[in-house]
């Protein structure tokens, strides 16, 4: 776990130390201008989302708009997050369902992807490449195309209207990139480390658990984040597979919320805001692993 902290060497780059001393480097200035514009582009929609969410419904449909609400209100947040109203109860339930589905997808994804990636990296069984390519190709199939046949299949398996149908489907969305990323990780871990451990008497499994797993933990964290975000955000399968209101996930809940709330833009924006918070916070905390994992797993030179 030694390489976990942001390494001091991350300051290296195409613009090096020497250049930085010259204060008026045009490239640097251009870069800063660009970053400023970009941050406005990235952040303004979220700012407007928040501003709208604290307006009253009337204030939201004024033209020209109120740039900042004259009488800001947290009503919509209260309504969504307090279980005193039906709306609040529904919303909290969707949220809970989303957390559960995403969490289960993530855990299962890691459990399934890690051994597969390890095998693809270490073992030399016949058909290895063919299988690996097939796994990667899964991403080439557009999800929407499979809606109907998958629905029929889930019905055969008695999974329609269960969250397991979603977990199963989401699992396969995340797997290709997870396996690919983790395989890249294992490729970079010297086989000799494991061999040394096995000479010391460890079984292959022990060597894997004590040597390989810790070294690949950034990769595992990264794939976990990736799976979680994917499951958290998926919409069209959840829309088709789940009927019961009590089992819906947030994206469909949000859509239904919108249809139900008509032009309640403040409510919709508040719901979007709440829905974004968990993943954004999680991602911001763990982003350094993400970059690190991509550097080590995806970007091999």
């Amino acid at each position, binding site marked *: 776990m030694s390489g976990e902290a942001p390494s001091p060497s991350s300051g*290296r*780059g*195409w*613009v090096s130390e*020497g*250049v*930085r001393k010259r204060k008026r480097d045009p490239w640097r200035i251009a*870069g800063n201008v660009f*970053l400023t514009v*970009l941050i406005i582009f*990235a*952040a303004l*929609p*979220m700012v*407007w*989302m928040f501003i709208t969410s604290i307006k009253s419904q009337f204030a939201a449909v004024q033209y*020209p708009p109120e740039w900042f609400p004259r009488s800001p209100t947290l009503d919509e947040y209260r309504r969504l997050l307090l279980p005193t109203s039906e709306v609040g109860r529904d919303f909290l339930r969707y949220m809970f369902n989303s957390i559960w589905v995403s969490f289960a997808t993530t855990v299962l994804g890691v*459990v*399934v992807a890690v*051994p*597969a990636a390890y*095998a*693809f990296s270490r*073992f*030399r*069984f*016949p*058909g*290895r*490449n*063919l299988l*690996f390519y*097939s*796994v990667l*190709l899964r991403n*080439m*199939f*557009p*999800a929407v*195309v499979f*809606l109907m*046949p*998958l629905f029929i*299949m889930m019905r055969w398996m008695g999974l329609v209207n269960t969250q397991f149908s979603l977990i199963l489907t989401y699992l*396969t969305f995340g*797997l290709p990139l997870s*396996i690919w990323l983790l395989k890249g990780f294992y*490729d970079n871990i010297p086989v000799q480390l494991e061999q040394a451990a096995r000479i010391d008497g460890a079984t292959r499994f022990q060597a894997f658990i004590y040597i390989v797993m810790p070294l690949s933990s950034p990769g595992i964290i990264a794939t976990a984040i990736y799976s979680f975000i994917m499951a958290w*955000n998926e*919409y*069209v399968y959840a829309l088709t597979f789940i009927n019961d209101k009590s089992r819906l996930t947030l994206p469909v809940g*949000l859509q239904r919320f919108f249809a139900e709330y008509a032009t309640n833009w403040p409510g*919709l*924006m508040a719901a979007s805001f709440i829905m*974004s918070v968990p993943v954004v916070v999680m*991602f911001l905390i763990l*982003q350094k692993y993400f970059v690190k994992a*991509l550097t080590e797993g995806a*970007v091999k*030179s």
Partner: protein
Amino acid sequence: MTLATPTTTIRKPASAGAVRPRKLNILQRIWKHRHDYLYVLPSIGVMLLVIAYPVYYTVYLSFFNTPPNLALEDKIYVGLDNYWRVITAESVHEATWNTWVWTLWSTFLAFVIGFAAALALNHEFRGRGLLRGTLLVPYVISAVAAAYIWRWIFHSDFGVVGAISVALGITERPINFLDNVDIVMPSLIAVNVWKEFPFAMIMMLAGLQTVPEQLLRAAQVDGANAWQRFWHVTVPHVKGVTLVTVLLLLVTNLNSFTIPYIMTGGGPAGASEIWITHIYQIAFGRIRFGLASAYSVILFVIMMGMGYFYVRALTRGDDRSHG
């Protein structure tokens, strides 16, 4: 896929010219490695479960006409008629054009902006972590939420962008982003780029970590200017990750659904209809499952063609490291 597995050619018995012993040999080798398969069984199993039947069913259904007044069991076999109808339909041509406009522009802009951001972020400065974090947020926001946020921002009557442009005196009336056949596509692409550039940024940021600093220093000592250092040192080192990033973006964009579906539903007047929303519309709006299946199969074929490059890019260097 016809990509041969290199391992099957190893240790070919010199004397055996016949097919039979070699076949046995493979079976033996499979048996010898039988425990290895257990590691990949869960992932391959779950993939097969979720993919094999839908692919089979889609191909099967593509040969049948399923008019809206008939139950699916009463479908009518029509051979390749559905394929012909898809290929010749004007709306499909329109959607094809839109799909490429959507995919190529989204990919190009997301990549260029992401790469530029990665370059600008690739040195130490105060607040870098915060800045990088903020720029990453659009990537993790749900597509459904993003679609609604932007639909609201672009709203033809109460949208903030339209209002700003009026307030600044750029236009007289609020700009009509989503209800206008000419502007709807650029508007949707802007949303998609907003959502995707962080992914390109983070990938390229990772790629830039692999550029050796000594080389940049050496080039500087040799008198290379910033552009030359970028072009001759940085670019060659990030070629691989560029390819991977671009391909991942291309595949994602070709498969886009949520943003156009929620923001415009393919409208107005079909101006933002892309392949996937079109297939959804044919299958669920017009209940022509046969037609939609043929459309999907055509899509598979195109995707598989791309798949070759995709797999090559993702597995580049594998043979070298473990050959």
